[in-house]
Structure formats: structure tokens, C-alpha cells
């Protein structure tokens, strides 16, 4: 039963079907409503909403990446913001190079922040970022490599549980401090900003916004499929086995550290891609993305949505961030009460997250059975259970 094609397996899950179809629909519809309708039309989607939703979607991808390691492999990373930020910085560096001589000082060689800090030449680690391809490679390579090296040491030494969580936090905190230093050559506290275009297309055009939104939506869909492929494979069953009984898995002969390293690295790459999509949409990347509080927040999206399911984190990220946008605008003085209250409420009353909540899951379960019967009536005629 585990050999059915991926898509067929997904189709049997109404929650996933709904979510993915909404995402794909939105990927096409939102840009269309934004670009094709006149701005006074009732169905026009303002650019403001397009970038906002685009930002949420990058967060959703980030949450998905955390869920892969935490929900499925039991590795609670409190440092995933670091991978996100590194991906963002790689993208930011590319866009900085694209500015060329359009900076305020008109210096074609150096970014503005280097000019007014009297840097004489471009540091070596900025080489190559003029090329889009190289930058995209770095978007996946830098977070992936960091995760690989960090994971290699940590998993081999069998650092687990809260100890692992804290050292991931130490990692992102150390990076935060490092990137704050102006001497590092990443723009210090101000970070990278004032981006103009990607591949010659202006960032501030509606077309580019719609494209980035489309890419973000499709990235979430692709991210979902990749994660789904992983967790449905035998490897996926091994990592769940590791989560539930690590030493049993070892005594079965599995090299737990390799499996952890694999998912951790994949997850970091996904986070890096999310970061790279995030930066052009918000227009700035600075060291505060590395702050440990940000990483904790990602974990909270996942917990709220429901970890250990792939739809949960996506929904969690969307809900929390929408709530945040809404409350900071509507109730600026007391929104922290609302957000804090939401976290406490959901822990106490929705222990399995939004998607694990009985009312919701029952509705979907009913759908699932109906759908399954529709697709493979004979299975159910025998009273067997689909996977």
C-alpha cells in the first residue's frame, strides 16, 4: 500500500487536497486579480496584499522545514532562523550587486555601506554574487553546508533533546552577533537594503511582485511534495522510528546520525530557499533575522498548526502571521495580549494543533473515507484499512 504514486496518496487526503488546491489556485488567481483587474474593481487584489501573502507563504515554507526535522524526526531546532537568514543574505547579496552604480554614491564596484565605511575593495566572499546562478547555488549551499557541518558534529556526538535545541540556539545567536559586526562586511545592523531588481526586472513592479508571489506559492507546494515524498518513503518511516525510539532504531542497525543529518540538511536547504524568496518581498535582510526569538516563533507556528503533519505547519504559519499583521494594525497597544493568549489557548485546548483538533480532523476523516471508497471501493468492501 505504500507503493502508490505520491499524487494518488495525497489525493486521498482531503486536508492536503484542499490546502494544495487553494495554494495552486492562489498562485495563479492572486497575480491575475492583481494584474488584470483595474484597481477600483471589487475583486482587485492590491499589491499590498500580494506581498503580504507572499511573505506569509515564505514563512509557511520555513515552518514546513522545521516540521520535517521536529515533527518527524524529533529534532527541536531553535536555530532554523539562521538557515532562513543565510538564504536571505545570499539572495540579498545578489540583489546588492545588481544595484551596480545606481547606489547613492554611484560606485559601481562597492555597495553603498562599504563606500561610506571606506572599504577599498570588495571582500572575497562577495565574489560571484553578480551571477544569479551562483547566488542561487549559494542560497541552497550555504545553509545546507552549515547544517551539514553542524549536524555532522552534533549527531555524531549524540547530542539530543534539549541539549541539541540549546546548541542550535547558540549557533544562531553567535551568527547574530557576527553579522551585527560591521567589520564582517554584511552591512552590520542595517543589513542589506535598497534593492532594485532581479535579473533586470524591477522589484517594485507589480509583475515582479506577482511573480514572487507565484514562486512562493509554488515553492510551498513543491516543498510540501518533497517533504511528503520523504516522509512517505522508507526513510520517512526510519526518521519517525528515530523520533519514537532512537536506540531501538540503532539496534536495528540504522546509523541514526546519517538519517538525522539527511533530514536536517534538507530542512536547512528548504529554510534557505524560503529566506531567499522572503528577502525580495520584504525588501530588507538584517541580522535580527538571526535572533533566537525569531527561531522560537517558527517553532510556535508549527506547534500551533500541528506538528507531525505536513499541512499543520503551513496552516499554523499562515494563521499566526495573519493574526500578527491584523492585531498590530487593529490593536497596536494590546496585540501582544492577543498573540500571547492565542498561544496559551491553543496549547491548553488544541494540544495537537489546529489540524489535529477533533472537530477539524473528524470532518476531514469523514471526507477521507468517502473519497477512499470512491477511489478504491474494493479495499473497503473487505473492511481493510487504507494507509
Amino acid at each position, binding site marked *: 500500500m505504500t507503493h502508490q504514486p505520491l499524487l494518488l496518496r495525497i489525493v486521498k487526503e482531503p486536508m492536503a487536497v484542499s490546502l494544495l488546491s487553494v495554494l495552486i489556485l492562489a498562485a495563479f488567481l492572486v497575480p491575475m486579480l492583481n494584474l488584470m483587474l483595474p484597481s477600483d474593481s471589487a475583486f482587485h487584489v492590491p499589491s499590498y496584499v500580494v506581498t503580504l501573502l507572499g511573505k506569509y507563504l515564505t514563512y509557511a515554507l520555513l515552518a514546513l522545514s522545521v516540521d520535517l526535522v521536529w515533527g518527524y524526526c524529533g529534532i527541536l531546532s531553535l536555530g532554523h532562523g539562521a538557515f532562513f537568514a543565510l538564504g536571505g543574505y545570499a539572495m540579498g547579496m545578489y540583489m546588492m550587486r545588481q544595484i551596480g552604480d545606481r547606489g547613492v554614491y554611484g560606485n559601481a564596484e562597492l555597495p553603498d555601506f562599504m563606500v561610506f565605511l571606506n572599504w577599498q575593495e570588495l571582500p572575497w566572499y562577495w565574489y560571484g554574487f553578480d551571477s544569479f546562478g551562483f547566488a542561487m547555488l549559494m542560497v541552497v549551499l550555504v545553509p545546507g553546508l552549515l547544517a551539514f557541518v553542524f549536524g555532522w558534529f552534533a549527531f555524531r556526538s549524540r547530542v539530543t533533546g534539549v541539549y541539541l535545541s540549546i546548541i542550535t*540556539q547558540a549557533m544562531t545567536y553567535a551568527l547574530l552577533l557576527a553579522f551585527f559586526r560591521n567589520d564582517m562586511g554584511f552591512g552590520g545592523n542595517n543589513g542589506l537594503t535598497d534593492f532594485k531588481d532581479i535579473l533586470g526586472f524591477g522589484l517594485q513592479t507589480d509583475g515582479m511582485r506577482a511573480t514572487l508571489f507565484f514562486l512562493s506559492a509554488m515553492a510551498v507546494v513543491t516543498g510540501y511534495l518533497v517533504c511528503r515524498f520523504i516522509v512517505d518513503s522508507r526513510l520517512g518511516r526510519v526518521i519517525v522510528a528515530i523520533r519514537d525510539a532512537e536506540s531501538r532504531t540503532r539496534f536495528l542497525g540504522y546509523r541514526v546520525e546519517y538519517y538525522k543529518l539527511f533530514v536536517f540538511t534538507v530542512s536547512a536547504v528548504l529554510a534557505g530557499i524560503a529566506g531567499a524568496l522572503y528577502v525580495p518581498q520584504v525588501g530588507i535582510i538584517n541580522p535580527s533575522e538571526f535572533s533566537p526569538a525569531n527561531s522560537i516563533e517558527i517553532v510556535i507556528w508549527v506547534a500551533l498548526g500541528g506538528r507531525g503533519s505536513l499541512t499543520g505547519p503551513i496552516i499554523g504559519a499562515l494563521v499566526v502571521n495573519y493574526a500578527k499583521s491584523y492585531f498590530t494594525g487593529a490593536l497596536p497597544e494590546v496585540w*501582544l495580549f492577543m498573540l500571547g493568549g492565542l*498561544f496559551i489557548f491553543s496549547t491548553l485546548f488544541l494540544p495537537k494543533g489546529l489540524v489535529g483538533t477533533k472537530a477539524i480532523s473528524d470532518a476531514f476523516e469523514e471526507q477521507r473515507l468517502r473519497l477512499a471508497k470512491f477511489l478504491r471501493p474494493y479495499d473497503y468492501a473487505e473492511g481493510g484499512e487504507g494507509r
Partner: protein
Amino acid sequence: MLSKTLAMRWLVVLSVFIGLGFGSSTPAHADEFSDAVQALNADNNTDKAAAIEALSATGDERAATVLSALLNGTLFYRQSDGLVVLSKESGNVTILIDPSTMNEVADVSGSEAKKIRINNKLRGQLKGVLGALTLLSKDADKRQNAADEVFKANDPSMLPVLQKAIARESDPDVKGRMLRAQAAIILEYSEDTAARLKAAQTLGEFTDPDISALLGKIANTSTDPEVKKLAKDMQDSVEGRLAAWSFLGNLFQGVSLGSVLLLAAVGLAITFGVMGVINMAHGEMVMLGAYTTFMVQDVIRTHFPAAFDWSLAIAVPAAFLVTGAVGILVERGIIRWLYGRPLETLLATWGLSLMLQQLIRTLFGPTNQEVGNPSWMSGAIETSTGLVLTYNRIWIIVFSLAVLGMLALVTRKTMFGLQMRAVTQNRAMANSMGIRSGWVDALTFALGSGIAGMAGVALSQIDNVSPNLGQTYIIDSFMVVVFGGVGNLWGTLVGAFSLGIVNKFLEPYAGAVLGKIFVLVGIILFIQKRPRGLFALKGRSVEG
């Protein structure tokens, strides 16, 4: 210009001699004196400077009183007629005194009097002048101060009065300081090589960064090769001794940072280490403790100002009770539903921390609140060696150890401690033995929170009291607890102090930021070596 000032100084010195020689001032001085005092209320600083010189030149012994009042900001003038007056605080009432007669000026209300403003330049001038005026004071403390001021001013015109003072000085400590001032003047300004060499020798005996700097300056600038060489040698020897002191200073700083980390972490060692609650609201408990201190001080300030020095003694138990009570509420309301789901506590306590921050912001406003140091925590043990041990840091070190000691006693020696350990080790067994585990949980959480609150009292003495206070410490606290080994108080102690000391010894070489980065990387690498922290319990596998 220079010669004019010098001449003035000479006049001062001369008049001091006269004053000494002829006893108390004669009435003839009175008018001259009050004119000079009146001149202090000048429009610009240049005139004020001249007036200060003139006033000290009167040689009147009241001049010191007036000048130190000017320095301390208690010299006023009456707006109506510009009469210069001294002001004295007496309870809540300000009394104005005519400096010439030392009588109260009855018809001046506080708001009518304006302070005579001075600037840094005048302040420097005043200190020098006052130094010379008080070198021969009857009060040994004042003489000692004066000797230090003269040393700092390093003004050759003060040499004669200094020599006179040395001759009369009986207190060996004060005399030493005067000799130091004298040697400094001779070394820098004398033309006599032999005297300068002797002065350099004398100075070489002191272990003082100021002297090292002076010797260094002479070694660099002197044209006399002999003096130059000796100054260099002496500087090296002073520097050598200073290095040892600076090591001690570093150590103190490290221990002090360690004590702050320990205080911040020890409450967490209970709620997280013992109970397993990933308590993100721990920092806010610390903050609540700091705000309790503010409230206590506020009440004391407005109602019992005399008891201000006791404010912390009251704040410590108050903070313990307040945050302990909050702890009970939190445990009963939220945490108790989450046992067995430790990661969920992260989510709930994070939400709680957001709410507590906002609550404080709503109640007290977002700005810093002023929490004062009681007098016994202000100031420092200052040695001339450049080693400065501030009282607040010393007390915090003592306090942190006391808190930890008390906690160890509670957990090891009391019935509650026994029950607490029983419940955390085997809840079902404890229940069956009749321990009401629910209450033990609540009290344990309250204990951890209460200790965090007490830490807040201490941290309010060195940090800004603002809604963000807790956020500053939460990450470091978790680092310390995990580095030391979860569930091990001894580990928390050793972890805190070793992180503090390592940080402080790295800092001079790597700089503040890189130093901290190295410490973090160090923690990451250390955890590879000991995946369960510094003091991990070893044992056979139970489930494998």
C-alpha cells in the same frame, strides 16, 4: 596668561600662609571677601574663573566653604538683587545662608534663588584651588583628598605649599600620598637631574596606572637620557605589578559576570532543570522582581525616605512573594495541564512572556524606571592600583551564592525538598505515598519563580529596569543551565562562573563581540564532548 595664573596661585599660597600665621581673618577681609563672593555671579565663565582666583586669593578661610559649595552646586543667587547665597537642605526645606555672615537669609524662598552654573573647566579649576586650600586642613580625610587632587593637577606652583604640608603631616598614609604628588611635580617640572631621578625612584614604588602613565610620558619626552632611562625602567616595573592587579581585576569581573549569570539561571534550574518546564517566561519573572523593587522603593521614597537603605532588604522577600504568587497562578492555571508534554510548555510560556511584558508596559509605561542603589551598594573599594571592586558587584556575588546555598538547603534538608525530589523522580509512587503532588508542583514552580524574582532585585541594581529586562537574560540562562547539566544545581553554579570568567578573560584579546561569539562556539563544542552537560549523571540504560 600662564604667568598671570601662576602669580595668582602664588598669591593663594601666600595668603594661606598668612592665614595660618595670623590666625583667624580680620574684619578688613570681610568686604574684600563678600565682594569676591559676589563676583562669582558673573555672566560668563571667564569672569567666573577670575572671580574664583580672586576669592581664593583673599585667603579667607570661608573661601573654601564657598568654593566647595560652588563645586557641589549649592551656591545660589537671589534673582531679585543677585545676592550670592549658600543653600542647605534641611529635611524638605531649603535654607539660604549669606556666606559672609553665615546667617540665614530669611526673605528668600527656594524658587527665587537660582543656582550659579559652572562648567567642566571651572570645575577643574575649583578642584585644584580647593586642593591647595585644604592641604593643611585639620581633617585627615580632606588632606588626603587634597593630596590626590594636587597629584592629579600636577601643578608646579603648588610645590611650596605641598612641601610645607609634608613637613607638618603626621598621618603616614596621607604623607605617602603627598610625597607621591611632590615626586610627580619634581619629575615633570624640575631641572635638577638628581632630584628627578630620586622622584622617579619614589614613584616607581607605587603601583598605580596614573604613575605608569606619567613615567611613560617622561620616558618618551624627556631630553635628559638618565631620567629617560630610569623613567622607562620604573614604568616597566610599575607595569609589571599592574599586570598582576589587572589579572585580579579580570578575575573579579569574571566572577561578577558569573554571579549575574548564576542569579539569572538559578530559578530556571528549578523550573526547567528540575521540573522540565521549558520556561520561556523565566526572564519575565526576573523582570517582575525588578519592578517589585521599583515599587518598594517608590513607596519608601514617598513615605519613609529615611529607610531608603533598607529598601532592598524589604524588596527581596517582597519580590519572592510576588513572583512566587505569580508562579503558583501560572502553574495552577497553565503548566499543570502540560506535564508530560514538555515542548508544549515552551509554547504556552512564550505566550505568557509576551503577555507579561505587555502587562508591565501597560501598567508602568515602556520607559526605564529608576531604581536607586542604597548607600551601602554605591561606590567601590578603590585601590590606587587601578583595581576597582564596586560594592554593588561584591554584594551581588555574595547574594548569588547565598541564594544558591539557601536553595540547596531547601532541596536537601527540608520535607518540602524531599517531596519535591520524590515527585519529580516518580510521580505515581509519590502520589501513592500520600504526597499531594499537585501542590508540590505548584510550590516547586513558585520556588523557581520566586528565586527568579529575587534575582530581579539584584539585577535591578546593575541594569535598566524596563519591560525588556527579562529578554536580556533568558538565552544566557538557558545556556548556563544546559551547559552545567540539566537538573544539577552544582552544575549551574560551576557553569555560570566558568562562562563568566572565560568570557572576561577572552574579552581583552578578542573584543567584546568576538569574545562572546567564542564563548558560544565553545559551548557548542563542549556539548559535543559532553552531550549531557558539565555534570551529567551516568548510568546504565533503562530502556536502552
